[in-house]
């Protein structure tokens, strides 16, 4: 049930429907939170940071979703990758209280919409981006302006605005990856 609904929302998002995409990310973040709370019981402070890192990763890698593929498998592989990466960075693999196997897990079985505070401040990381990336993200993604309006405000070309958003969100993910 969750699978089919999430898949429809994501396919809508990939087709350019931003309200479907918003609903997809919102539901997905609740599933990811429940999944990670269970896996990171001994590192509760990391959960919300990792939820945010994963949302950014899912967004940046959304072109790798194959429409015929189960969404659980796609998301689980990314969640597992980022979780192992985090634990490797911390070299505290032994703290993992629930083993991660190759099999798709119960990712969509549970959901947790109570967000704790993230410790990492993405707004601060965003402020560290170069202007040609930061300005398009702020105008388009936070203030909700169109490409044309953002282009007029910043004096950039419409394609430079799109590239700036795209590269900026990738750079944000890279900053998160390299900060620890």
């Amino acid at each position, binding site marked *: 049930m969750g699978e089919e609904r999430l898949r429809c929302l994501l396919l809508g*998002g*990939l*087709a*350019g429907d*931003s*309200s479907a*995409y*918003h609903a997809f*990310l*919102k539901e997905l*973040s609740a599933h990811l939170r429940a999944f990670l709370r269970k896996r990171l019981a001994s590192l509760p402070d990391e959960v*919300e940071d990792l*939820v*945010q890192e994963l*949302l*950014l*990763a899912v*967004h*940046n*890698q*959304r*072109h*790798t*979703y*194959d*429409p015929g*593929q*189960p969404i659980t*498998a*796609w*998301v*689980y*592989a*990314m969640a*597992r*990758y980022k979780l192992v*990466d985090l634990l490797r960075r911390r070299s505290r693999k032994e703290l993992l209280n629930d083993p991660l196997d*190759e099999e*798709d897990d119960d990712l969509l079985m549970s959901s947790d919409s109570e*967000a704790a*505070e*993230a410790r990492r*401040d*993405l*707004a601060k990381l*965003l402020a560290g981006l170069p202007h040609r990336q930061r300005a398009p*993200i702020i105008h*388009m*993604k*936070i203030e*909700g*302006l*169109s*490409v044309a309006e953002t282009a007029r405000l910043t004096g950039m070309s419409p394609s430079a605005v*799109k590239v700036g*958003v795209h590269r900026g*969100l990738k750079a944000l*993910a890279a900053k998160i*990856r390299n900060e620890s």
Partner: protein
Amino acid sequence: MRTDELVSLLATGTEAVDTRLPMRRYLIAVLAGTAIATLLTSGWLGLRPTLARDLSVPMFWAKEAFCAALGAAGLVAVARLARPGFRLGWVRAAVAAPVVAMWLLAAAALLAADPQNRSELILGQTAAVCPFRIALISTPLFVAMFAAMRGLAPTRLRLAGAAGGFAAGSVGALAYSLHCPELAAPFLAIWYVLGMLIPTAVGAWAGPHLLRW
């Protein structure tokens, strides 16, 4: 930034994404890498002069089929491992089968041969250079594989890197076979496989460094 703020940020002003684009880019990378590897073979080593005559030799086609089957399996492995949540599945068998078949062919050829001819069947004329030439010729394909994978999101980096190296090595061997004069199964079963394994090992080493995201 709270998580719902991030969700809104990501969703606001989202545009349509073409999910077929990555595969199209991958195909272009494969074609470009193959073209450069072929040019490298013909320009550096030269096509073998007997190529036209070889077309009627069954073992020539067995060799081409061997490299082509491994190349195809390697390319499928890369396409799968470059995206989150795909498994290798039958691709493992598709990689193993041509190697096993070539080994069986090699064993049969060695058993049928006179003992004093066996080392000739194994070493041919070019055993000392063959694996390194295959590895060198596969370099443009190796670059193409890694460039394509970096644009996607592999989650098993060592395995994906090895698959990229293997695909490059086996397609590189196919290009090299346009020069290589060797047609004995025991030679191919050893030195061609070794030539493919060099980029595979380099890929397995490089994967975790170059493919992180």
